[in-house]
């Protein structure tokens, strides 16, 4: 009898879901009619179903939605690369597997000469196999490789697992010291694990990772700002951006003999790479404001407005004490001349600037994270330099663990009145470990609240994840620089040490109100991912960009005068509202909001701008040079708004506007543009 009830109970569950055959249905219904106990059971199960519906579905956050949309869009746009990837995968679903087997078999052979003792449990084995199925998993290799494949694969899988476990065996050791750092991070130690990684993702059926492997550098799509009609959009709100990485990256491309992909060109970062001759602040504010209206070089009927911020210049010696934690990526991918060795040289430059009151710790991350040098006073330079010298690359990347450890060290050595900062040096690929993007961003934001900021220094080529690094730096109130050579390292770590390291104003926002009597439409050049909604300006909870000591920030607006006959996309006139215009001769009102580094309430600055009628001859050197850089960006992006932009025009203006170019950055710019012009002409012929 009990048996029948149990069988019926099972059927009842399926019956509720209408997943029973006709006979079963009859059986259940007859039984239910007769058995009150099972009837009760049936009602209870129904209630269970009804009750658990009270845990309601959640909405997808709009941030996430936007992020996915953008990435999908860029994935579609990158049709060319995608196709190649697909072709590759298609061609090789068999061949690649065979090849992989050979390579791995070789690795296993080599690896087997080392003693291995860690056993695997049956459940782990089962779990690994579990994930290898489902309709999206790759087809097994074709017959001829299957024979070899089967055995080799099993061995490899086991080896991989053993190795995996072994790498975790380090954990206890790693947390403590870097005394035997040489053998942990020597290239040999991690080799196999690294080779096995692609296999693991291949077998695990998470096919997204495959695309990543073939697809090298990651850039977020940049959608250029369009012209907006002032009547409908009188307010333009943005967060400042002091990042300069895009320029050094563009320069790297050109120096390597090719033009950068359009999405690698972020015009505001190019403009902000250069110093401008803005006066310093005088009235106790942390930065000065410079505005100028003049001609627009690439469109004779438009005008160009420059808004420049200059952060207070503080001499290195007057900086408050620093508590720095270098977080250095020593994963296998960093094992290139332009990566880890350059990181070491760059950080050495920084160490040489340190004073006794400063402190430095070094954390590395690869297959696992470890503390190489505990926080050490800045005058123990030998110790710090020796520790830097010891770093070796090898292993996969557990960025997540590294960041956590680095923050923990920074917090332990927190200097209340000082500058507490993690400096991350990496090629930007975080993939193993707890490195869920969202989780990482949250962590960085949380640490920022505690007063620990993040500077990201990007190195290297090939696997460079620009998009991720910029996001990390933004979340951590920090800045982000791309370092492609030792001169750039000097610029970032020595010359701009103040700016790179000391924040003087945070959450700096700009809001501009245009006067419809003077301006018909406007376009913000660059800053695409820094646009804020108009309500965010007065909302102190809304995060924005940081300004470092000595940093300057320049924003350019291209404006269309009110008397222009140009047509822009408009909406129908509103039926129930009539907006009256207050007479004024202003072009615009510019409002700034910023917070002192430790404040939570913002301060407001307001400035008006009137038309001066300035022509090309009266344009300042600042505007001439900034507009030349912008024009270069428009050409590289092949912008729909580039108008009559030309290499000749911008070169001519840049040459006239080199100012007192002590460090030769502007001269270098001219050389880069000249080189790019040659590539461009070659491409056209």
């Amino acid at each position: 009898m009990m048996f029948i009830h149990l069988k019926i109970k099972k059927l009842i569950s399926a019956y509720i879901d209408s997943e029973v055959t006709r006979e079963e249905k009859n059986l259940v219904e007859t039984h239910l009619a007769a058995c009150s106990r099972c009837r009760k059971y049936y009602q209870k199960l129904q209630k269970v179903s009804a009750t658990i519906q009270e845990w309601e579905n959640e909405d997808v956050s709009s941030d996430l939605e936007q992020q996915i949309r953008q990435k999908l869009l860029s994935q579609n746009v990158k049709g060319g690369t995608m196709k190649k990837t697909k072709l590759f995968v298609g061609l090789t679903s068999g061949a690649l597997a065979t090849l992989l087997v050979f390579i791995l078999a070789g690795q296993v052979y080599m690896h087997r000469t080392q003693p291995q003792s860690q056993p695997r449990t049956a459940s782990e084995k089962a779990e690994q196999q579990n994930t290898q199925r489902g309709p999206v998993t790759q087809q097994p290799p074709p017959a001829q490789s299957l024979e070899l494949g089967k055995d080799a694969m099993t061995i490899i899988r086991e080896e991989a697992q053993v190795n995996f476990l072994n790498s975790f065996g380090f954990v206890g050791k790693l947390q403590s010291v870097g005394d035997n750092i040489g053998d942990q991070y020597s290239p040999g130690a991690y080799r196999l694990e690294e080779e096995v990684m692609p296999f693991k993702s291949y077998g695990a059926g998470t096919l997204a990772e495959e695309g990543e492997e073939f697809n090298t550098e990651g850039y977020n799509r940049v959608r250029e700002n369009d012209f907006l009609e002032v009547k409908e959009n009188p307010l333009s709100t943005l967060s400042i951006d002091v990042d300069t990485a895009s320029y050094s990256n563009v320069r790297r491309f050109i120096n390597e003999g090719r033009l950068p992909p359009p999405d690698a060109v972020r015009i505001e970062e190019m403009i902000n790479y250069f110093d401008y001759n803005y006066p310093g602040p005088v009235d106790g504010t942390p930065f000065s404001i410079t505005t100028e209206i003049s001609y627009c070089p690439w469109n004779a009927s438009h005008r160009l407005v420059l808004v420049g911020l200059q952060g207070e210049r503080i001499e290195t010696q007057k900086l408050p004490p620093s508590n720095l934690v270098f977080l250095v990526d020593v994963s296998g991918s960093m094992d290139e001349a332009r990566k880890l060795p350059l990181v070491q040289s760059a950080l050495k430059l920084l160490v040489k600037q340190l004073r006794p009151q400063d402190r430095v710790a070094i954390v590395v991350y690869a297959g696992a994270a470890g503390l190489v040098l505990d926080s050490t006073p800045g005058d123990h330079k030998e110790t710090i330099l020796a520790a830097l010298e010891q770093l070796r690359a090898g292993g996969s990347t557990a960025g997540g663990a590294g960041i956590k450890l680095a923050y923990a060290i920074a917090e332990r050595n927190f200097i209340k009145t000082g500058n507490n900062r993690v400096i991350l040096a990496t090629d930007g690929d975080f993939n193993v470990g707890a490195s869920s993007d969202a989780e990482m961003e949250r962590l960085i934001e949380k640490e920022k609240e505690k007063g620990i900021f993040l500077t990201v220094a990007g190195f290297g080529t090939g696997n460079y994840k620009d998009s991720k690094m910029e996001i990390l730096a933004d979340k951590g109130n920090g800045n982000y620089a791309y370092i492609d050579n030792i001169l750039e390292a000097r610029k970032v770590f020595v010359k701009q040490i103040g700016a790179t390291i000391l924040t003087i104003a945070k959450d700096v926002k700009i809001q501009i109100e245009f006067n419809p009597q003077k301006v018909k439409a406007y376009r913000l050049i660059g800053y695409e991912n820094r646009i804020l909604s108009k309500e965010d300006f007065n909302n102190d909870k809304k995060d924005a960009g940081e300004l470092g000591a000595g940093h300057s920030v320049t924003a350019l607006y291209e404006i269309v005068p009110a008397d222009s006959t140009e047509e822009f996309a408009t909406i129908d006139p509103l039926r129930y509202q009539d907006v009256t215009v207050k007479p004024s001769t202003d072009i615009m009102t510019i409002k700034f909001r910023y917070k002192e580094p430790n404040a939570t309430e913002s301060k407001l600055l307001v400035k008006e701008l009137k038309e001066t009628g300035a022509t090309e001859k009266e344009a300042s050197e600042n505007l001439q040079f900034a507009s030349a850089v912008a024009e270069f960006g428009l050409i590289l992006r092949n912008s729909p708004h580039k108008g009559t932009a030309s290499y000749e025009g911008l070169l001519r203006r840049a040459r006239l506007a080199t100012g007192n170019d002590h460090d030769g950055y502007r001269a270098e710019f001219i050389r880069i543009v000249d080189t790019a012009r040659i590539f461009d002409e070659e491409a056209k012929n």
Partner: protein
Amino acid sequence: MIEYKIGQATALEELFVRYKKPIFNYSLRLLRNRADAEDAVAEAFYTLSAKKETYKDGYTFSTWFYTITHNICVDRLRKKKNIISLFFKCDKDSAGYEELVIPDPRPDSREQAHTRERAARIQAAINRLPLPLREAIILREYQSLPYEEIANVMNCSLARVKVLIFRAREKLKNSLAALIAEAQ
């Protein structure tokens, strides 16, 4: 999906609009953590877009897409188990741990507090189920998939799906007994 495969970008947009919420909630309930679920959804859509060629016509699209998501989530759970537990001893007190909370921006009336408390208890009961039971019941109750599709997504037999759902309901019946009685 077929429309999308032959290259209609708008079809992708439609798929996104239609599936973002179900896929997100499926991942959320499976992974028990918002950050991971967000990543999983993103990954699922990228995979969908990158792997559209491997989609076979005739296959139910939802099955295919849930399978992609299933693989991503299971992979994540496995990595988490291996890495976090070994690495950080990720228990309730450590930094990386995050309980899933149901956010509610509205001010709490008494009734709302009550509703939320019930939802949290249901959530806790489901979270305590072992993974296969949890996944089966989620796919059935929240995603409303037929048994056959569940079997495909979880790559097991139809009979096993029946047993899993039955056992999940049995367990929930016991753990939610008080809650159910309260409602009456």
